């Protein structure tokens, strides 16, 4: 047994070291100094923007995930395998390329983008572009979580409810939703963590306008490049705390409801 321990110990050190470093650097000049950096108006607006982007992106993503999982697992149709593959495409696209996609579509250099700007609804270098890029990056999260779970659960329970006269919505709300709630929460949790932390894609579409289109991760970069180390690491510390909360909730879900989550997470 003793010989097996160095590996997990080493990996724990490598995994936890960045986390410790974040808090160590943030508190280098004490709590007061660190907290003061968060009351900076730009930092406040970054926090608000990140919350706004997550609040818009995550529900949209959940809606897509539920719809896709329903269409894929409750019906047999041609082209299903292709659609499943296409949903996963964002996983193999660089975040920077993801940002580029929306700059090309809606940027001032495109006809559509120019028209949108002229009509007072800019997408690139504005909040809608940040939402679209984040949506692309997090696109497969909820769907990938729900599809295996719903596939395993089959259709019998829904069919029974329908036979007994329940409407479609009632069947979904009272039969399907309770069966998938923990898997849905799991997907939403991961989706939210990524949405709040996305950097590359957002960096490209946002234009990094201070106080307007700068999210928390972009603010970290700005502070860092301005040698405002404590401010950068304090903002990073807030996101690191979010990551810890995510991990805790995720682990709790895995331990408690392992049988209701996708097979890949069972252990």
């Amino acid at each position, binding site marked *: 047994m003793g010989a*097996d*321990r160095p590996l*997990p110990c080493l*990996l724990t050190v*490598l995994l936890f*070291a*960045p*986390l410790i*470093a*974040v808090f160590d650097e943030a508190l280098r000049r004490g709590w007061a100094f660190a907290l003061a950096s968060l009351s900076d108006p730009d930092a406040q607006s970054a926090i608000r923007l990140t919350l706004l982007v997550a609040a818009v992106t995550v529900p949209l993503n959940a*809606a*897509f995930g*539920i*719809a*896709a999982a329903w*269409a*894929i697992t*409750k*019906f*047999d*149709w*041609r082209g299903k395998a292709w659609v499943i593959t*296409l949903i996963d*495409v*964002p*996983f*193999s*696209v*660089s975040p*920077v*390329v993801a940002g*580029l*996609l929306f700059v*090309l579509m809606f940027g001032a*250099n495109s006809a559509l983008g120019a028209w949108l700007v002229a009509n007072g609804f800019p997408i690139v270098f504005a909040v809608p572009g940040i939402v*679209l890029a984040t*949506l*692309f990056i997090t696109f497969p999260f909820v769907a990938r979580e729900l599809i295996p779970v719903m596939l395993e659960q089959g259709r019998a329970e829904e069919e029974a409810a*329908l036979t007994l006269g329940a409407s*479609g919505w009632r*069947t*979904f709300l009272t039969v399907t939703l309770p069966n998938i709630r923990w898997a849905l929460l799991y997907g939403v949790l991961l989706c939210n963590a990524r949405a709040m*932390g*996305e950097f*590359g894609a957002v960096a*490209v579409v946002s234009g990094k306008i201070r106080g307007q289109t700068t999210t928390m*991760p972009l603010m*970290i*970069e700005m502070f860092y490049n301005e040698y405002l180390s404590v401010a950068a690491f304090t903002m*990073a510390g807030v*996101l*690191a705390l979010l990551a810890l909360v995510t*991990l*805790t909730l*995720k*682990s709790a879900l895995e331990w408690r409801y392992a049988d209701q989550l996708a*097979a*890949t997470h*069972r*252990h």
Partner: protein
Amino acid sequence: MTARPFALRSPTPMPGWGLSFGIMLTMLSVVVLIPMAVLLWRGFVGFGAAEMWAVINRPRVWNALELSFRAALIASLFNLVFGVLLAWVLVRYRFPGKRIIDAAVDLPFALPTAVAGIALTAIYAPNGVFGAPILQTFGIRVAYTEIGIWIALIFVGLPFVVRTVQPVIEEIDRETEEASATLGASRLRTITHVILPMLAPAALTGFALALARSVGEYGSVIFIAGNLPNVTEIAPLLIVIRLEVFDYDGAVAIAVAMLAISFTLLLAINLIQIRSRRRMGAV
């Protein structure tokens, strides 16, 4: 009897086909398919294949592409080996703190890339907690060199192999190993001929996921890389630099090159996987 795409194969009493399929296809189109098509159209029709090649076929771009793929391969191979080992230890052994380590494996998924980036830079900088002793003992600089890029990509890609291999190890019956041992196989032979073939498909899937993620990774790399042209400048950074001077065609060319190489690699891994599954089926 028509073979229309998306046609239902059989009538069903299940409700919500139109609604769920509609939401799925609309969002898939708006968020993924149309933007990807616009990129390819802009590259091949708007700019031209020859012009794109002229952008890519320059030393600085070539070096960046090579660096991105080399570093991603090195980091993913490291994660393949250590990911399988770690998954094995996490499934087969009991030790104090096991649950915490198991949960911590997902930390790179949960921690935003920019946070990981500045934290790793602080640790591995020449005056950092790990950077200073490494520099003094081995004379190796980690941050602001290619090794720093490897470290960032190893961190980002670690969970993929562990999480894909872990459930498979759980499924392996200890009796299979015991049978192999009873039949006179050495411990090493049991590992190479019994266990590894069973883990191979899952490990390859994890490797492919880690590779796909590392090739395009940006946030965790740019802080630690140093970003010296031709030396530590990754391909995604070149796209950002092009966009900063509004050279959209140049950015598109590099993006198309990255997509082409990534999808070729993933296709190759998929083919290997199909072959290894067939071989497993034949056994």
